[in-house]
């Protein structure tokens, strides 16, 4: 429970951020919260400009850039332009170049395990949110199974925030709720059960679930309760 609240707090701080540096602070906090060796967020925008933040050592980042590892890193090669999350073990590490790269990464403390969430933004923007750690396969399997959903949502929160800093972007456009979503959130805030909300709006509970999930994403919340609280604190719903 404490972890859940701390996670919500970190994401709220992230959302309020007015400067890119806040992404670095948030990613360090999240790395500590999940007790993993590293978290990294990396993006390329439509003009090919890159931005990154994360907890890798500066030695490793410098080496990575100097050796142009972007071109052989199986995580980048295997995720670029895709949109499904990947356990690093599923990637192709068979080439000599990839194995050399992996050995160097491990030497620099990246870890032998990794999980990456690729994100496809508007206008060719692409980003990758990665968690890496040093542990055995079993422990890593349990970790990713337990946290996959949170990691996917966090990855998208980072990307939404990073997009806010794109010059041509109006921050509100991705966050506005439709009237139907406002109705659903308002009724939930009033303490209606899902069945009552669905009934009141004359929709099925499945449909309601999707409207709530959609609103949750727009509000940058981790769950329904959190989403209702955010909608209220932002004045999007009035109860």
């Amino acid at each position: 429970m404490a972890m859940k609240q701390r996670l919500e707090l970190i994401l709220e701080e992230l959302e309020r951020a007015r400067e890119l540096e806040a992404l670095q602070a948030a990613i360090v906090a999240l790395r500590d919260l999940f007790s993993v060796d590293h978290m990294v967020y990396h993006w390329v925008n439509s003009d090919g400009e890159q931005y990154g933040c994360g907890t890798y050592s500066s030695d490793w980042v410098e080496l990575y850039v100097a050796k142009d590892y972007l071109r052989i890193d199986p995580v980048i090669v295997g995720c670029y332009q895709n949109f499904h999350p990947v356990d690093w073990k599923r990637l192709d590490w068979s080439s000599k170049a990839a194995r050399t790269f992996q050995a160097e990464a491990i030497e620099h403390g990246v870890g032998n395990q990794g999980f990456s969430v690729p994100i496809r933004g508007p206008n060719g923007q692409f980003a990758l949110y990665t968690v890496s750690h040093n542990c055995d396969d079993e422990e890593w399997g349990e970790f990713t199974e337990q946290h996959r959903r949170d990691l996917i949502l966090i990855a998208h929160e980072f990307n939404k925030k990073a997009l806010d800093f794109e010059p041509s972007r109006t921050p509100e456009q991705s966050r506005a709720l439709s009237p139907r979503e406002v109705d659903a959130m308002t009724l939930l805030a009033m303490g209606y059960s899902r069945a009552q909300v669905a009934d009141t709006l004359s929709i099925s509970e499945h449909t309601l679930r999707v409207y709530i999930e959609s609103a949750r994403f727009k509000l940058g919340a981790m769950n329904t309760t959190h989403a209702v609280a955010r909608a209220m604190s932002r004045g999007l719903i009035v109860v």
Partner: protein
Amino acid sequence: MIRYIYANDLNNFPKLKRSMFLDRADQFKTRLGWDVQVNAQGEERDEYDALNPLYVIWEKADGTHGGSMRLLPTTSSCMVNDHFLNLTDGVRIQSPLIWECTRFCLSRDAESRTAAALMLAGGEVMCGFGVEHYVGVFDARMVRIYRMIGSSPEILGAQGEGREKISVGLWSFTDQAREAVARRAGISLELSKNWFDRSFGRAPQYALARTA
């Protein structure tokens, strides 16, 4: 067998690629009379094929297309949000946990189990990537097919009448539904998993590591 192929890898499967776009023209233009674009080569494509979607394809024994569907994330451009907001009460359905499934297509001579095999594969994607729902656009004929294979979507909204009726629907997939669909497809869950791993890389073998 089922293959999962991103658009930018389709060129590795020229026969499958060509026959899929031909079958799509045959289904959507010739048989259903939808207002879709068919190019000089006789292939049907739209702007979403240019967004590097993930195709789930049933490949027949001769290497050609037996059926397919097209997956896209709802967090960037997709058909439901770009064109069918009127069918979702104006709600732009967006979430990394909801993907869009469109262009569900069966070739004229598809074996009867093809549709079920595709649904089974859809479940594999959900399970493998943490997807909780699919949202999709489909016509009246598909409603019947989905019902037959035991995987009816929840209808969010519809327009038009009879054969012309277009609906936006929603799939969730329980473990029971998965087993039922696997039986209809005549494909074991193990084989289905194996096809998934062939496309996306071998799954981490925790259980094996434990007993080794």
